[in-house]
């Protein structure tokens, strides 16, 4: 068993890489295409098998471990409780996404390329989960980040390329910030610390001001923001609302469901668990809170269902940032917050995946098949949507309640503030989901260029619907399996299913009521807008803050490098012309070399000598 797990630990990321490698050979490319959708299977297998193991003696202890001393700077592969949870939902999502994409891109001429980047991104995503040290994590993180670019720009439309540009620019900025943080850690540790005790002691040194660069808080913020780009932390979320709508549906689902969680996992991995960093915590808490709210507001003002979902992700990641913030400031909260964060991640990942796939499914509903199919889709979609809103008895409620439970343990001002804030946010999430359902209903046409070719619903049903349905069911029935997917330490008791039903139900009910009122009073003949009259014209452009940033960049008088070089060269030409002139004068002089020197100079020298001679002879 141990041996099998070790092999799986390696296969988890190397199998997708192998699949990607097949692409370089024209002959094997077909095989790669067939294998790619299933490339996440070793990861899933590992997560499932590890789940069956007896719980390790203490939290965070590795369930299985492999060291590859020759690889890179020496790579530790570790599967611990946190990793298992992430691996589980991530590989489920990738499997579902892969199967969905296989059907969705069946007639896409560029599907080979899609699955190349799919496999590479997958390798990165799963690899970073099992990475046991800082550099290995960074290695896989970077692989995922850059390979995902290929997924974002797959459509190669103008919007896709713009979104890709924003994505890659922000990703690089994120990488740089992250690397700066890693350098600080590495410089303090004197190498590459493994996660866990080594990293923790590094933080202790850093917090004590023994690091070579900044203090602990600054390093933590560098790391948090570097990873925050991936996690969509405000104001680093700009790429999210641009990339999700243009990426192929499966890719959006993976971006939002799995990959942004890599940011969260990164936070949990690299930020200190036992060294309080209050400043960093405050920043995370405040930006998280802002994101949770801002995502709702900006999301409601969108028309594209995928953009709505993107902002929903921004909002949800805000919660997770808050959770992380608590974790960083309050080591005593660690078990609770950790469990809550993982529950959140799993729940949100699955639910968001299901929601995104819904959009893709809706796109492929043939016109003739009419509304019946759409009703089915809408009905199914409502389930994860409600879970996301935190309806009691769903996975969302479980995650939320666990967090509250933990906060209750802590008490204090933060708790009081959150006690008010969380229900309000839940209300917002409900409204956002309502808006999403409305925009989904209105969506009629396939949004993906290149896949416009009509697909008979019957063909696609099996392959398109199956992964969707699986995710919907998993998302809706999360309450049943979620607790098993997360290792719960002994000192944490998960709240029961019935806990705070009323408190939890209230925001959802209010949200639904507001939605209904707006729906019913809409002047829109279709009554499908689900947006109050006052807001009917108001829109936040997708990519919100980016618009002013781009405007400023355009306006900035950046020096024109070519002009500068040109002017230098002009000056050089002038100098050369002057030199040519001087050279011509020299030529004239040189032409007289023979006569001048021979005659005058020789004469003068000889006569002078002769005179000297005469004088000497006389003396």
């Amino acid at each position, binding site marked *: 068993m141990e041996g099998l797990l070790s092999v799986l630990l390696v296969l988890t990321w190397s199998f997708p890489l192998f699949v990607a490698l097949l692409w370089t050979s024209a002959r094997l490319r077909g095989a790669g295409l067939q294998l790619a959708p299933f490339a996440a299977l070793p990861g899933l297998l590992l997560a499932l098998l590890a789940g069956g193991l007896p719980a390790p003696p203490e939290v965070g202890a590795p369930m299985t471990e492999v060291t590859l001393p020759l*690889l890179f700077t020496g790579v530790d592969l570790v599967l611990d409780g946190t990793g298992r949870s992430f691996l589980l939902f991530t590989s489920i999502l990738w499997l579902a996404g892969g199967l969905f994409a296989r059907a969705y891109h069946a007639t896409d001429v560029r599907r080979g390329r899609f699955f190349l980047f799919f496999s590479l991104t997958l390798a990165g995503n799963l690899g970073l989960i099992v990475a046991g040290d800082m550099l290995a994590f*960074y290695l896989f993180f970077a692989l995922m980040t850059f390979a995902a670019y290929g997924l974002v720009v797959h459509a190669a439309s103008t919007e896709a390329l713009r979104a890709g540009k924003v994505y890659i620019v922000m990703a690089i900025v994120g990488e740089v910030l992250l690397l700066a943080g890693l350098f600080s850690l590495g*410089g303090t540790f004197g190498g590459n610390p493994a996660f866990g005790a080594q990293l923790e002691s590094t933080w202790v040194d850093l917090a004590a001001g023994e690091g070579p660069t900044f203090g602990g808080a600054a390093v933590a913020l560098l790391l948090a923001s570097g990873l925050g780009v991936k996690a969509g932390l405000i104001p680093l979320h700009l790429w999210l609302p641009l990339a999700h709508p243009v990426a192929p549906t499966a890719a959006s689902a993976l971006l939002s469901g799995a990959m942004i969680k890599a940011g969260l996992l990164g936070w949990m991995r690299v930020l200190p668990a036992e060294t309080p960093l209050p400043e960093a915590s405050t920043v995370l808490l405040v930006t998280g809170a802002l994101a949770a709210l801002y995502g709702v507001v900006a999301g409601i003002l969108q028309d594209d269902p995928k953009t709505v979902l993107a902002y929903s992700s921004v909002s949800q990641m805000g919660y997770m940032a808050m959770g992380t913030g608590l974790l960083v400031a309050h080591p005593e909260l660690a078990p609770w917050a950790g469990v809550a964060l993982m529950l959140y991640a799993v729940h949100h990942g699955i639910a968001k995946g299901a929601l995104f796939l819904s959009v893709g499914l809706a796109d492929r509903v043939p016109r003739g098949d009419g509304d019946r199919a759409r009703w089915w889709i809408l009905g199914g979609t409502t389930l994860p949507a409600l879970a996301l809103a935190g309806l009691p008895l769903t996975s969302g409620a479980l995650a939320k309640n666990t967090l509250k439970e933990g906060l209750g343990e802590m008490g204090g001002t933060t708790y009081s503030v959150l006690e008010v804030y969380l229900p309000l946010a839940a209300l917002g999430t409900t409204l956002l989901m309502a808006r999403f359902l409305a925009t989904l209903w209105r969506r009629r046409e396939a949004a993906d260029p290149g896949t416009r070719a009509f697909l008979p619903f019957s063909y696609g049903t099996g392959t398109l619907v199956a992964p969707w349905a699986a995710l919907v069911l998993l998302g809706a029935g999360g309450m049943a399996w979620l607790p098993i997917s997360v290792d719960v330490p002994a000192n944490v008791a998960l709240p029961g299913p019935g806990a705070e039903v009323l408190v939890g139900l209230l925001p959802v009910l209010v949200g639904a009521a507001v939605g209904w009122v707006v729906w019913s009073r809409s002047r829109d003949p279709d009554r499908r807008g689900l947006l109050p009259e006052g807001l009917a014209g108001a829109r936040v452009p997708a990519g919100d803050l980016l618009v002013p940033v781009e405007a400023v960049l355009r306006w900035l008088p950046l020096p024109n*490098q070519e002009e500068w070089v040109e002017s230098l060269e002009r000056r050089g030409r002038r100098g050369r012309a002057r030199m040519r002139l001087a050279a011509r004068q020299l030529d004239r002089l040189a032409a007289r070399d023979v006569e001048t020197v021979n005659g005058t100079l020789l004469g003068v020298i000889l006569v002078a000598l002769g005179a000297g001679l005469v004088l000497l002879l006389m003396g």
Partner: protein
Amino acid sequence: MDVTPLLAWDALPLAVVLSSFVPGVMIMFLKEEQARLRNSLNMAGAVAKVALVGLMLQGVAGGASYEWALEVVPGLSLTLRGDALALLFVTLSAVLWLVTTLYAIAYLEGSANRTRFFAFFSLCVTATTGLAMAGDLFTFVFFYEALTWATYPLVVHKGTPEAIRAGRTYLYYTLGAGAILVVGAVWFQVEAGTVQFAAGGVVDATAVASGPITWAFIFAFLLIGMGVKSALFPIHGWLPTAMVAPAPVSALLHAVAVVKAGAFGITRLLHSLFGIEVAWEMGAAVAVAALAAFTIVYASVRALSQDDLKKVLAFSTVSQLSYIALGVALLDPLAHVGGLIHLVHQGIMKITLFFCAGLIAQTLGVKKISDMGGVARRMPLTMAAFTVGAVGMIGLPPVAGFISKWYLGLGALGAGQPWVIGVLLASSLLNAAYFLPILRTAYFDDPDPSWARGAEGPRPRLEADWRLVLPAVTTAVFSLAAGLLAASSWSPLGWAILIIEQGVL
């Protein structure tokens, strides 16, 4: 075969130098039509060199050291010394020479003046291995200057006005600085009383303290001499111009020989002549570091606005080379490791990029980035190799470039120079800013329909001549392996650590 007696042969360094010199001179007297003989000589020399270097590697790893000397005039001799540091560079040039030779044979097939080309190609590598194993400053300068003129016929190989201009620029820069180098070297000999290279330097700290201005000038002279080949900021201008040369030459210039000679020279200057501690006390090392840092950023900014692929690569070389100077100038063993491994890493990555650029130009006639749309679909192997190189240049794991950057960063922190991290990161950003658009264009834009394989005639099995593709893929694999297997003792990293441990730096 039992190689034990060979392992103890002191003239092994000479044999390594001669393994390319002899074929080079023989080729010089061949007729243009004797292509088969010429190629055989070339490949035989290249393989022999790799084999001999392999022997030396084995010996040195086992703690041996090789020294061979020939007196030129009393007090000055040509000294070749094969120690771990020298072998780092020698191995790089020997291996890359082998692949470049294969590449060049295919690249230049059917073109004119190949006899001259390959003769000087061999002489170039001769000079490079010579200066890599130079045991003293005289020998170093000897081969360093020889390298300069041996490269000139290669730069002007095409014989176009542009190439000839580039050759002139190249010579003016390198020989101009070379003259200053000679003065610096002689002055060094006069002041220090020796030209020997020795670990930890041969300059007496008290002597420096008593004549700081003299020593500052000596250092500056030597630095200018070394700096021009390693393309430090104000004297880097020849390198982007010289990219008009054929692709194998660019590979040689940018990866194997010329620029590496400069960077290696700076290493020798800081470590074997002055000693890094003395250099820091003089303030010379920090000046080198600052200059290198500025060059890193400046050249990257210049690369941003180029459309000619090879020009981008050239500016990238200028930038990347200064990593080496930066690393060896910092007062920290990890930084030295970073600088030394980048000597190798930059070589294998940049040669991959130039191979690919040459492949694309040769196969599709594409030289500008803006024309590169969809190249990846037509030439997937080439672009895969190119991607590895580019990713390495940006410094992303797992390609070798990241390892360099990581050690440089750690070393900078260890040396108490955190600003270096900023430079490294800025460089990464800028590298990404000019390499990623190339990749995007190549992968995501639509290809030119006329490129379809087999458009004229039967569809070839490979995307281009295998002798062109194989070197590119090989070096790409090297670049990946140097990063992926960095922790192994035979990786550049492992060898650099051996250099530090053996104390030959």
